[in-house]
């Protein structure tokens, strides 16, 4: 059993380790190691296509994570008041959103967006004042943000809701009892209590959007995110430069995940302090 588990882990992590190792390869071919060098990192960072893709990825990830965090937090708070059958339906939809394969989300978002654009664009053109060119809705940064934000929102709801549910209700009552208005209570008690979860939700949303290839591939239109750039470069052969990019993305993602996890755990310890 132990050997089996070890084999699974090796199978999972060796390719990742190989990428990291080969990113420091001095030679120009990915298949053979020819000494240590960091030149490919320099090359990757100096490549204007890489930097442009990185900029697109960061913009989309920041916007999607912000939107998802705002909407997701509000939804998590509102769900407190929802009970019974509607609650069951809501929960089911949330978990479905997280579990559905990326490819399904990608295709369905693409179809939905294209259908809506086909319907909206003529409408906009007809409604726009004569003499002005009507805006044309098309796939691009906007659709990327929308698709990522929508998916990440489910993540944020699940994370924040767990924290909201774990919060002592009597804290809210104590705050009201001491004369705080509902908004005052939200600002001074609820928000500080659930903030670790909100921050963790934001960071996870960011990494999800930043790393995502499948959904982005469908809805990006002419935009190139970093994962899309990597995918298209691989078709021209795996170079150490790609390995270097992959290693950097991996490092940043792992760092954010570790930070998010530790924020969540510290938040729980602090929250639990009142009961101890």
């Amino acid at each position: 059993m132990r050997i089996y588990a070890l084999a699974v882990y090796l199978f999972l992590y060796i390719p990742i380790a190989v990428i990291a190792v080969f990113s420091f390869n001095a030679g120009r071919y990915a298949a053979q190691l020819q000494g240590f060098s960091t030149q490919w990192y320099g090359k990757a960072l100096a490549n204007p296509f890489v930097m442009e893709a990185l900029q697109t990825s960061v913009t989309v990830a920041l916007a999607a994570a912000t939107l998802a965090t705002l909407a997701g937090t509000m939804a998590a708070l509102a769900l407190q008041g929802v009970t019974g059958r509607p609650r069951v339906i809501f929960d089911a939809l949330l978990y479905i959103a997280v579990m559905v394969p990326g490819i399904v989300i990608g295709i369905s978002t693409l179809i939905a967006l294209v259908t809506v654009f086909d319907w909206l664009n003529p409408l906009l053109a007809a409604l726009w004042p004569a003499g002005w060119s009507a805006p044309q809705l098309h796939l691009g940064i906007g659709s990327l943000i929308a698709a990522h934000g929508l998916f990440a929102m489910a993540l944020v709801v699940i994370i924040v809701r767990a924290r909201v549910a774990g919060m002592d209700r009597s804290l809210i009552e104590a705050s009201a009892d001491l004369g705080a208005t509902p908004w005052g209570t939200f600002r001074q008690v609820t928000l500080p209590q659930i903030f670790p979860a909100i921050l963790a939700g934001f960071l996870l949303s960011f990494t999800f959007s930043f790393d995502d290839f499948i959904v982005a591939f469908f809805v990006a239109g002419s935009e190139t995110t970093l994962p899309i750039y990597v995918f298209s470069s691989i078709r021209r052969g795996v170079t150490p430069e790609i390995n270097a990019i992959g290693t950097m993305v991996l490092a940043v993602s792992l760092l954010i995940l570790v930070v998010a996890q530790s924020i969540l755990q510290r938040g729980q310890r602090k929250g639990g302090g009142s009961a101890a």
Partner: protein
Amino acid sequence: MTGKDDSPVAELRGATKRFGAIVAARDLNLSIRQGEFLSFLGPSGCGKTTALRMLAGFETPTEGDIFLDGQRVNDMPAHRRPVNMVFQHYALFPHLTVAENIGYGLRQQRPRLAASEIEAAVTRALDTVRLPGFGARRIWEMSGGQQQRVALARAIINEPKLLLLDEPMAALDKKLRHDMQIELQTLQRTLGITFVLVTHDQEEALSMSDRICIMRDGEIVQMGSPRDLYDRPRNRYVADFVGKSNFFPGRVESIDGGTARLVAEGGVTFTGVAGEGIKTADKAIASLRPEQIGLTRGAGGVPVTVINRIFLGEHTEYLVRHPDLGQFLILASRQAEAGEGNFEPGETGNAHWRDGAALILGND
């Protein structure tokens, strides 16, 4: 303060609270006097907490009205009521320091109070609850007893018209609880704030309150001073809940000017004040406090066998058995024992009580 001293600071008028089909509180009528220490006493689920939460503004009565200082407040939300509460598990804000917790109420006031003013008030409050210098601590660095004091300071700093305490001592150990009871009582007298306590602990209610409101199944069973409730319980429920009592079922033989005579099993008779609604020939019970029964070796009274003896220091509690009356408790004082000496389990003696010492009550 607007009200005169004899005007009620708060009133419940026919207050009823339903949760679906469940009636948590039924037709509560009660007026709370300025400056008194009132307790709601009863087992869990008797509606005492619901009554408190209606006063605080966390529950709106389904029927009836709540008045504070003569003003109907049914629709006034909790944050606008001049009432503060000490929560059962204190509900201290874990993300704030002790001082920030205590100053929370003052920081909500509009127009805003000066920071120096709040700081001075917090320092005074910390002194009042005997926690000087603890302001910078975090909540989780405080012990249970200290957390309770912080909760108390946080509630009294706003000088509420009514301070509500929801089983505040439930989480403390026995010794600490006793100290806190004395402290609370002293605090209540010095501050002159009206305290309303909810508890299921009869000793706590008896020792601290000016008046006690005994509740059962959402209704007020009896209300009065601790002494009234102890000496003149309305029924078996109150007699059982307030202090210890022996109950002897029987039939009422005669009633004469408020004094009833009850014949129990084996023809043993009890006389005493007749409770409400007691009629001749009714089934009833005689309630007799353990300390009202004496145990002697001399003649007189009814013969009993000692089954168990518990030494309580000042008193000794005997569990005895009578062939017809069954088992009952006798509380013998040190002085009584000085004359009679100890009874060992298995020994026989005579139990006797004064004529008129019992209470003849309905069996509900």
